Every structure is written in C-alpha cells, then in structure tokens.
C-alpha cells in the first residue's frame, strides 16, 4: 500500500466570536492516497467545506486551525508562512468549486485565465502557456478548444464551465484536488460526465481527490473511501461500500435511509432522527378545520397546447426579431387528488410551465382549464381567473429568496390570504399563529424575520403561507432542491400528508428523479420545451418508452450500494 499523499491528523478549526469560541471542525483525521477519491459527506454546517478550506489554506479570517496538522507528501504544510502556502495553492493542491457560473471571472476570456494560472506556476512563455491551455481544454473534453480558448465564460454552458474550472485546477498538475460539491449545480446528465472526468483524471494522473458533497448518490458512484461528518466531527469512515452498505453509526444509518430511492416507492420518507432534528407537523389539526370540497368528475386541471416564447434578440423590425420557444405545445391533464410530476433538465421549460399554470406568465398559445373553466389563455374571463386564483398556491425552490426579508413572518403568511379576502381581518393573528403552530414552528415564530430561520424552517413558512388561503391546488417548483437530505425528507413527508389528509392536488416540479419517484402518481418528461412522455410513475421508471426518458433514468446515480435497513416499501 502506498503512502498517503495528504494526511490530516486531529484537525480542529476555531472561530472566535463574541459569544465565545466556536469549533466547526473538531479532531478530524483522514488521509488520501495517490489516485484515490475520498469522500467527505454530511449536511450543511457539518464542517465539510471548512475542512476543505483548511486543507488548501483558505480559511476566512477569523477562522483558523487551532490543533492538529496537515501533511502533504510527508511534509507538514499547515504551519508554513502565508507566502509558502500560496506557493502550494494551485500548484500542489488545487480546488474545484461548486458553482461553475460564479467561479470564473466574467470579464476575462477562458484562455486569459488559464494562461495566467499556468504562468503563475510554471516558467513558460506566453505562447507555450497558450498551447498548454488549449491542450488542457482538449483533455477535459471541450470541443474545438482552439476557438473556445478565446471565448468568455458566459459563452459556455454550465457543464462546459465546470470543465473549464477543472482545467484551471489541473494547470500545474497538482497532487491533490479538493472538489467542493463539484456537481451540485449541474443537471444529472452533466453530473455523470463531470464525475467520470474526475475519476478518469484521478486514475490517469495519480491525483488524490477529496470530494466534498452532501449527495449520497455521488459518494456511492465515485469514491473509494468515505468519511461521514456530523456537527464538526467524523462519526464514521471506511471503504465506501462498507459504510453505505452496512453503516454502523446511527447518524450514518439514518442518513443512508433518508436518501430518496429511484428503485422502489416507499410510503413515507424515513427521516433522519439522529440528534433530535425532527419537528412535528400536525396534519390532524389542519385536517380538522379544512373545508371539504369534493372535486367534480373529469380532469381537475387541464393544460392544452401550452406555448411560451421569449424574445431572444430584439429589433425594431418585427421580422428580424428572434424568439426562443421555452415551452412548445405542451398538453397534459391532472386528475383530482393526484400528484403530477414534471421532470427535465435545466432549461427544459419546467418552471415556465409552472408559472404559466399559476398565472404568472401570459400564454402565447393554448389554454389552461380548471375544472372545465378556462382560467388562462384566450378564452379566460376575469371572474374565472379570480375564482381560480383563490384555489391555487405556489411553493418555490429557494426558501431564501422567496420570503421578503424585511417583512415579519406573520405578515408573510397572512399576505395572500388577506389579499384574496379568505380570512376576516379580525381573525388574522389567531389564524396565522395556528398555522405556524401546525407546520411545526410554533405561533411565536410569527414575530420573527425570515433570516432567523434555517432553510427547512423557511420552507415550512412557505408551506404555511400557501395553506393560509386553504387552496385545493398546490404548485411546487423544486421545493426541496436547496435543502439537505434530512430536511428534504421532512418537507416531502409534509407534502405527502397534505395530499393524503387534505385531498390537495399537486403539480410537482423537480429535476431529481428519485424524489419524483417517491412523490408523484404520474410524471411528464420535458425536453427542450416539449413533453416527450407522460406515464404512471412506476411504469415510467420500470419501462420508459421514450429514448430520452431511458437516458435520464440510466444517468441517475446508482444507490444499489446503500443499505436497505429501515425502509418500509409501500
């Protein structure tokens, strides 16, 4: 067995604050051997990224290493002076960031950024550096690198940008690469390509890779060994197959169980129970005062020939304008009480459809019918539209930007209900308190502001806001994409309860196929604005008809490795 290229022993990171010293990373030890990919997995706040930053010497002040040591190739590096640390950075340890859209400087061409990095580390001429840059772009799989080297980052797609970021990290042939959530911002097909590339490069160049992620699927597919972090400490580590297949620590067990499975449908999501994170959601109380409104026969909501075009290039002369068709002739029907899923990659038109159905975008063509009445499109009357508006509510993806930071939570929750006049003014405070209590936040949450809550709590606020008008139809646009897996399980269970106990019908939009499998009764698959397949969920996953659906399903990270303990099938 070869010696480790990177070895961390008893690493502790301290942040002095006004309320005393916080230690976000405590006594962490692990190592990476050349050519090996070691995963660090955990939820947000577990200290994974902090560990990565400590390795590359980029801890933001006042955070600092207070104990332990980091050795690179047998030589201690954490106590080197800043000048020597800077020489290791990029040259011997490189880093890949999460979001390729923000990690490249928009004002310089890709070539300029590569050349400057190469010349910062290697003693070569500008011409040689450029040749090397082109070769690197070629190696990371960018077609026509000779031309693309002179283009700006905005001219590349997300996946291509992440390849450029990887090329930048490889400039000086580093021995260790710290990859911090390298595929979290990417579509599933791009994610598979990038992970393949990282695996290939690690083997080919004998690089050690530290892969930081919250995604168990990525860990299962890519890493050789894994360290599970919880609240600043490593709770379990070992070969990936062993840790995921037979987890020993209760936290790892519940984390593995909470991963949404693509291969079978469960009645409920197993929740991460470790550390007492679960908060009650009192569905029975909600159901008690929920007005019973039996749905009629026939489809609940029908979309016919939905089409939306956006102006791509404006011009005074109408014939010279260029349009981009975001949604092209999409038709589907949602049955009363079901959860209808829409899946597709970014840019496929999922969110555009959600907004058209919610009435946020006008339709260019087609119509939306709600229980037979036209509510959007050419034949919609103002009265029908108003009646529809009080029946439909939306839950958005990002709980950080979908709540007004300057409003108190009680006002946020009350706003739609007050606007539509569903709650009498005198009862508002009582009703809002009750709702907040029932979604598990407690009535006193109304007096606080959104920034005082975590992501999962904010999404509960969004749910309370949506429920305040007692709607019958919920549009959920990627409701859990920004959340940790344990919080995701809680929120998805809440949504399931709403469907089951309150009889809500849902349009559920997601790029995450395993989540869709767990949540939806029927699913529509979108590609480039066209609906290519609509089927019952089980059939879609087990016998997909359209080649694109088959491709998407084949690209899902495999979870065969994961332990099945504690999963109750439906």
């Amino acid at each position, binding site marked *: 067995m070869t010696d480790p290229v990177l070895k961390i022993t008893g690493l502790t990171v301290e942040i002095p604050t006004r309320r005393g010293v916080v230690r976000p990373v405590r006594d962490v030890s692990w190592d990476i051997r050349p050519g090996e990919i070691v995963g660090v997995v955990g939820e947000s706040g577990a200290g994974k990224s902090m560990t990565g930053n400590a390795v*590359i010497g*980029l801890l933001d002040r006042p955070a600092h290493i207070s104990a332990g040591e980091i050795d690179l190739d047998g030589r201690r590096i954490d106590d080197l002076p800043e000048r020597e640390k*800077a*020489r*290791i*950075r*990029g*040259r011997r340890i*490189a*880093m890949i*960031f*999460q*979001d390729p859209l*923000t*990690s*490249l*400087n*928009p*004002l*310089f*061409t890709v070539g300029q950024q590569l050349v*400057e*990095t190469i010349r*910062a*580390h290697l003693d070569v001429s500008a011409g040689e550096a450029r040749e090397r840059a082109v070769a690197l772009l070629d190696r990371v799989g960018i077609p026509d690198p000779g031309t*693309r080297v002179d*283009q*700006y980052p*905005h*001219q*590349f*797609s997300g996946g291509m940008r992440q390849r450029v*970021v990887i090329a*930048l*990290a490889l*400039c*000086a042939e580093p021995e260790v690469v710290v990859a911090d959530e390298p595929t979290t911002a990417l579509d599933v097909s791009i994610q598979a390509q990038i992970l393949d590339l990282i695996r290939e490069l690690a083997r080919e160049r004998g690089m050690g890779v530290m892969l930081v992620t919250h995604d168990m699927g990525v860990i299962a597919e890519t890493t050789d060994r894994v360290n599970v972090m919880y609240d600043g400490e490593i709770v379990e580590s070992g070969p990936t197959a062993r840790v995921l297949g037979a987890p020993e620590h209760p936290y790892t067990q519940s984390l593995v169980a909470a991963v949404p499975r693509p291969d079978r449908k469960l009645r409920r999501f197993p929740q991460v129970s470790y550390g007492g994170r679960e908060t009650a959601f009192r569905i029975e109380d909600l159901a008690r005062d929920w007005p019973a409104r039996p749905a009629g026969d026939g489809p609940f909501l029908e979309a016919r020939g939905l089409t939306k075009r956006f102006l791509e290039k404006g011009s005074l002369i109408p014939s010279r304008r260029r349009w981009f068709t975001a949604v092209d002739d999409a038709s589907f029907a949602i049955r009363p009480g079901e959860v209808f899923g829409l899946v597709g990659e970014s840019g496929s038109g999922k969110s555009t459809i959600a907004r058209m159905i919610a009435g946020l975008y006008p339709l260019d063509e087609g119509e939306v019918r709600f229980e037979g009445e036209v509510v959007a499109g050419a034949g919609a009357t103002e009265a029908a539209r108003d009646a529809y508006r009080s029946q439909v509510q939306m839950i958005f993806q990002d709980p950080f930007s979908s709540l007004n930071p300057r409003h108190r939570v009680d006002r946020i929750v009350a706003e739609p209900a007050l606007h539509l006049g569903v709650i009498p003014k005198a009862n508002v405070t009582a009703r809002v308190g009750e709702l907040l209590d029932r979604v598990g936040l407690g009535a006193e949450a109304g007096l606080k502001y959104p920034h005082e809550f975590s992501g999962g709590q904010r999404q509960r606020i969004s749910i309370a806001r949506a429920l305040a008008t007692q709607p019958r139809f919920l549009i959920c646009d990627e409701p859990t994409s920004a959340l940790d897996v344990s919080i995701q399980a809680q929120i998805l269970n809440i949504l399931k309860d709403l469907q089951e106990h309150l009889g809500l019908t849902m349009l559920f939009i997601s790029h995450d196929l395993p989540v869709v499998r767990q949540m939806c009764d029927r699913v529509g698959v979108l590609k480039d604005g066209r609906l290519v397949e609509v089927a019952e969920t089980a059939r879609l996953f087990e016998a997909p008809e359209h080649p694109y659906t088959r491709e998407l399903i084949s690209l899902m990270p495999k979870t065969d490795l994961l332990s099945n303990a504690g999963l109750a099938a439906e």
Partner: protein
Amino acid sequence: MLSYILRRILQSVIVLLVVGLVAFSMFRFVGDPIEQLLGQERTQADVDRLREALGLNEPFVVQYLGFLGRAIQGDFGISYRQARPVAEILLERAPATLELALVSGIIAVVLGIALGVFTAIRREGFAANAIMTVSLIGVSLPTFLIGVLLIWFFGIGIEIPVPWGDGTISTKLFPTFGRGEVVDLGWWTTGLLTESGRASLVLPAITLGLYQMTLIMRLVRSEMLEVLRQDYIRFARARGLKARVVNFRHALKNTLVPVITIIGLQLGAIIAFAIITETVFQWPGVGLLFINAVQFVDIPVMAAYLMLVSVMFVVINLIVDLLYVTVDPRLRIDGGTA
C-alpha cells in the same frame, strides 16, 4: 454594434431637444430682460422698439424654433448685456471651466479609485478606518463651505508657532481669487503653463473635486468588498495567483464596471457644480458667466449655457455606455451564447 450606437445617438438628440425646450420655457419666469436693459428713463416706445428688435413679442414656440435653428448653425444670439455674440463669450470662458473640471475630475477619479481600493483591501486597518471617517466630511459638507474654509486656511492663512526660523509658519500658500497669469494659445487660454496659474488652480480644484472623490472612493470600496466576496475571487486565490494579481487584475476590473456609470455622471456634475466653486473663487469660467447672466436675465447666454451643459452630459453618457460594452463582454450584442 453600429445600430446600437446610432440608436443611442438618436436618443441623445431627443434628450437635447427636450432639455432645450424645458430650459427655454423656464426663462419666461425669470423676469423681463427689457426691465434690466433699459434704465429708469424710458418710454413705452423704447420698450416696444426693443421688444420688436429682440423678437420677444413673437409666440413662445416661434422663439424656441428660431433659437434651435440658429443654434444648429452655431449662432446662439447676442448677449443682451455684453452686446457680443454668445458663442464668442462662451468660447472665451470655456477653457477656464474645462481646465478646472479636468484637473478636479482627474484628482477625484485617480484618488477616489486608489483610496477606495486601499480601504477595501485593508478593511480592518487603522489607516483605512481613518480615511473612511474623514471621507464623511467630504460627503457631507457643502461645496461652498469647503471653498470658504480653504480660503480661510490657505488664502488668509493662520500663523503656526514653530521653534525654528522666524518662529511661525504661515499657511497662506495659495491664491484664492481668479485664474492667475494665463497664456493665450490663440484658440485656448491656459493657466497650466505659469506658476501663478497652477497655484491658482489648487484650491478651486480641491473644492470642486473633494465631494466627487469621496463619493467615488466610498462607491469603489463597497463595490470592491462585494466583488472580493465572489466565488471567482476565491477561485483565483485557490489557483495560487498572487494577491496583487487577484486584487488589481481580477477584483478591480469587476469593481469598475458599475463604477464607470457613476464616474460618468459625476464628471457631468463637476461641470454643473463648477457654478458654485467659480462663484466662491471668482474663477472666470462659464459657471460664473451663467450666474451673472441669471442676475441680468440674459436669456441667450443662459440658454446657450444650459444647452452646452446638456450636450456634455449626453456625450459623457454616450461614452460611458460604449465603455461599458468594451469592459464587459457579456453586454456585447454579437457575443451570443454557444
């Protein structure tokens, strides 16, 4: 690209026409120029004759169109007060204002950006905090007060006792009145070539530039702090680039994108603010000319001055928009996403 420039120029022309109309219509409320031109001893016949001669009895629209038509040919009429062509008077006065504006503009931009970057990079340092505190004075004191304080300190001067030489040093260092000696180059008069001309420029330039400098500095600082938080800066550091390269190549260029707009607007403001500074220092520029014209209801001079200022604003903004496109590749229309 060409169509973009043409469209911008067309918009600029419309802006100029509107500004001209507003300015011209406002003058009707300033007062009656005839009152100022003729003394106490006047007859109704004199008044009528002068009104007829100056075209003041025509309808407003006719007056405005006439003004525009002549202005296009470079004829801004005859000053009521000085009885000389307005264009000639303006040309004579313009170098003084432009030199003043240029020098204070350069001070404001160069020092503003340099101090802004410094205070952003050394955010926690004592010097940066001291500069930030002092800069509050620059932002909050009105221009005329700064001018008067500078005149008191450097013009009138105070005696500071020191234990050597004559026993005191005077702070009376710079002249505070007029332009000093100027050199006439035929089409341009400049104070930059003589000792007294340069000395005379110091206090007015500081007075005029101080506010703009502190504004630019504070703007650069906050933009830079924002940019330094971006992922691409972290990534640049993680790639092992030197702090100097990261700060001055990657961060500064991104900082300047939004700052350029404000700088453009502020350069226009420098010319507009020059009215106050020129009055305080009796600087013989167009601003002082305008103030005097207002007192005597010299409509041709006022109209020409306002048109001149708006032309400058519009041209500066046009340049800023074009600069913007050169700096930020994302705004280039032909740079489509591949």
